[in-house]
């Protein structure tokens, strides 16, 4: 699971009002290189909840994302920053671990890179 996906996932437990962001429990992080696309990064940037993203990147062991969101001009001009943003957003994978509902603490396991958001025993 990439941090892009983590940024798009919320707790789906019924009655939970603050289900985002899910807390990451890391057992294993892997890096998978993918080709960088500047247009994609600039287009997705406004949709990213920056605090959730930068916190998540630190939990995943990557300290290069600032706590405050960068100015959009940085994305236009700073190719080095784009490279780091790309790495954190699309190349870091939570391979093993869990996502915790911030309100209830309910654990959603992540195995072999796949988050399991099913609530089989609980009533959704």
């Amino acid at each position, binding site marked *: 699971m*990439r941090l892009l996906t983590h940024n798009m996932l*919320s707790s789906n437990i019924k009655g939970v009002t603050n289900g985002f962001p899910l807390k990451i429990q890391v057992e294993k992080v892997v890096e998978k290189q993918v080709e960088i696309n500047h247009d994609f990064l600039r287009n997705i940037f406004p949709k990213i909840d920056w605090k959730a993203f930068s916190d998540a990147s630190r939990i995943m062991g990557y300290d290069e994302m600032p706590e405050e969101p960068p100015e959009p001009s940085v994305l236009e001009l700073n190719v080095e920053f784009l490279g780091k943003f790309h790495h954190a957003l699309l190349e870091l994978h939570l391979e093993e671990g869990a996502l915790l509902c911030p309100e209830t603490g309910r654990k959603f396991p992540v195995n072999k890179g796949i988050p399991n*958001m*099913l609530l089989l025993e609980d009533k959704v």
Partner: protein
Amino acid sequence: MSYKIAQIRLVSSHPEVYEPCDDSFALVDALLSDRNNLLELKPMLCMEVGCGSGYVITSLMLMLGEEANGAQFIATDINHHAIKVTQETMEAHGVYAELINTDIASGLENRLAGSVDLLVVNPPYVPTPEDEVGREGIASAWAGGENGRSVIDKILPVAEKLLSKRGWLYMVTLTANNPSQICRQMMKKGYASKIVVQRSTVEESLHIIKFWKDNDIEADTNDVITNSKAVPLGIVDSVRSQIQRLSFWGSCDINTTTN
């Protein structure tokens, strides 16, 4: 010109996972026939709900290829065997999508709302007794309840929520699902529709329907709401043209006209 799609011999399998069949092929053919339009759309986030074997999402990624310009792909399935098989199918073809084991798009609906530019769905559309819906394993790939609509009717409001303003939805339906009624229902929400592929097999008559947001329809629908006594002519006409389109299914297999 033929484009790359998933190769059947490289598609992984499992006894509890639906194998690519006529419906999957028809959906991929629909996407292929619309490939140039899809490239013009320049989707940023693409998603498949219910990826099964991974045949469709893998084909989509392959046919868009490098021209997808960095588009990202997400696929979900309620069946964890299907997620594993999709992962293997993608790996065999050298493509990557983020996979999530979830019911429809549960957990993604809030943050992904209004962000999905391309959504493809081959839902469980087979009419079955209602109690067969929601069972584990391969049954989840086909059991559709009354008129095969139980799961479709859950997916449609989610699709509406996820789609971006310029987003497109491609969905497989069966005649028994009453596709013209689905189109009318979506029209009330501001979506235009057309059949991209129609195909009859011995067992079933399949229609791949494409939905997209049409601002004119939305305006007309608002008129209806605010002025419920007089239905504007525009919507009557467009409904009629839709129904005609849906009643006379046409004889050609693939309708490649653009919208």
